[in-house]
């Protein structure tokens, strides 16, 4: 049994009488201890997928399908049931570490809150555990940080605090939504390195949501590429980066700048614009931008077909 099992999840909204689809039928399983990278453009539904898993979608979101965590159905579960899982076994860290910390609470109080909620710790126990958690994420001067407010910390320190907070409940799965996008490159490298050591120390499943293939490539064992609310390719990271099969994945890989590669006059990019939630498609959603598109692509939607090394949703996958 997979740790997290998302099955044919669909999410849509009714906005001003129009149907806006953000996730159009996604099945995804994350195994214990696995690190999955989820890549896609803005609006591809990658964040929605996991917000839905945690019960964080806006009230007017309409959902179908199922999300099971350790066999427990999360879809439609009440807040009480979700709160037993959220913050302890399944947790999430956000893109912007400043806005994800409550501005008027000291770091120590915010960390302590998780413990008093889930463990019923006393204040002094919570303080000691918060201190240990800060030390664990290799923050400088952890003692002092406990007494500080979020705005007094640097971006990297805040992200470390968020990670420390996420790890307090001793989770078996961590969803990281663009965890390094708001940070500069050196801090980004430190955080990624920390994730690596973390995974080496304990079996923690990580879902790394990012638009940055370089970030995902460093950590993920498997990469899932989403486009217009659907998975277009899912494959072991090394294989996908070396030999992408979906034309969209190929373009993404080509777009990632390579150090030591030939010097380019212009950076490559994927032409056209990403489809929006209001758009509906008969055929393949990527067909309008696809260099390999054939008439069939516009008429018939390719299904995600699982092969020996991963799955791809394309009528004419590369290398076939």
């Amino acid at each position: 049994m997979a740790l997290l099992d998302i099955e044919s999840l669909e999410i849509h909204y009714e906005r001003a009488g129009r149907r806006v689809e953000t996730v159009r039928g996604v099945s995804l399983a994350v195994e214990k201890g696995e690190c999955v990278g989820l890549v896609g453009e803005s609006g591809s539904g990658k964040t929605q997928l996991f917000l839905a898993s945690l019960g964080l979608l806006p009230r007017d979101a309409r959902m179908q399908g199922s999300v099971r965590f350790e066999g427990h159905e999360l879809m439609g579960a009440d807040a009480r049931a979700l709160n037993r899982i959220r913050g302890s076994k399944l947790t999430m860290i956000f893109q912007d570490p400043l806005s994800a910390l409550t501005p008027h609470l000291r770091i120590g109080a915010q960390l302590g809150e998780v413990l008093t909620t889930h463990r019923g710790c006393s204040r002094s126990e919570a303080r000691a555990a918060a201190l240990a958690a800060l030390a664990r994420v290799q923050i400088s001067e952890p003692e002092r940080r406990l007494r500080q407010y979020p705005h007094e910390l640097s971006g990297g320190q805040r992200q470390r605090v968020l990670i420390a907070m996420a790890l307090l409940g001793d989770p078996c799965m961590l969803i990281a939504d663009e965890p390094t996008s708001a940070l500069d490159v050196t801090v980004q490298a430190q955080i990624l390195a920390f994730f690596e050591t973390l995974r080496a120390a304990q079996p923690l499943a990580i879902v790394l949501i990012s638009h940055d293939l370089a970030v995902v490539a460093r950590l993920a064992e498997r990469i899932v590429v989403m486009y217009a609310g659907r998975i277009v390719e899912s494959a072991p990271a090394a294989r996908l980066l070396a030999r992408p099969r979906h034309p969209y994945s190929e373009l993404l890989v080509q777009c990632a700048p390579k150090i030591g590669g030939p010097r380019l006059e212009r950076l490559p990019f994927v032409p056209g614009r990403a489809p929006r939630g209001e758009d509906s498609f008969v055929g393949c959603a990527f067909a309008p931008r696809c260099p390999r598109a054939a008439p069939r692509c516009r008429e018939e939607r390719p299904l995600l077909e699982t092969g020996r090394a991963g799955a791809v949703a394309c009528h004419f996958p590369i290398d076939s």
Partner: protein
Amino acid sequence: MKEGAWSEAWTRLAAGRVARIAFLIMLALILLALLGPAFSPHASATLDWQSVATAPGGSSRHWLGTDRLGRDLFVRTLEGARVSLAVAAVASVVSISIGLGYGAVAGYVGGHTDRLMMRFIEILSGLPLIFFVIFVTVLFGRNEVLLFLSIGAVGWLTLARIVRGQTLSVRRREFIEAAIVSGASGARIIVRHVLPNVASPAIVYATLAIPQIILLESFLSFLGLGIQEPQASLGTLIAEGAGELQSAPWMLLVPGTFLTLLLLSLNLVGDGLRDAFDVGERG
């Protein structure tokens, strides 16, 4: 509220000269109301038949004159102010508690609950609330505590709306999502993460509401529905004085001036506070 925000707000409040002077006047008036009567040789209920309705002046034993029954107007005004301030304190505590709780819950829970709660407020604000207070007074007799509570119970509507609006914007912020993800319950999120963020508008509203409450109490007392003899509030004193306007104008002027000064200083302090807090998010 971040560390330093309170002290910063205080600094800004003190920096505004008008607000600073108003704050000092307000403090002086409150202290005078609390301590003043103790320094006067007269008691508020003592009738001085030798000097009935004497005008204020150096020759009189009564600094600010006496009323028709020879009661010392200085002492009576200050004791009346005490009552008015007590009404304001109790009523604003009541209305702030209800307003904060109601607004935060409506804003945080949202959806149908929010719609229902807000419709309820709209219905209440559609009713002439002064009649509610009068109705309660008539029904349960003239009871001071009841008067305090009923004024407070009608004063929370605006604050609940303000707090709801603030909550709506706070609840969309990411730290609320982060708190949900960390498994905190709704009640905990409201108390720990939402309310402190809506505290400053609530404080400002309270300082601006206190003068309104004092005015409302004075109005009710003026109508004869508030405080009962021999007790006085600023409102009853003004009502009494208004009847003697031609023969003894000081009976209106003394409590009237006190009330005007009190309201003016409270309003200016409220304005100053609003400016002091109205700085958005810094840092």
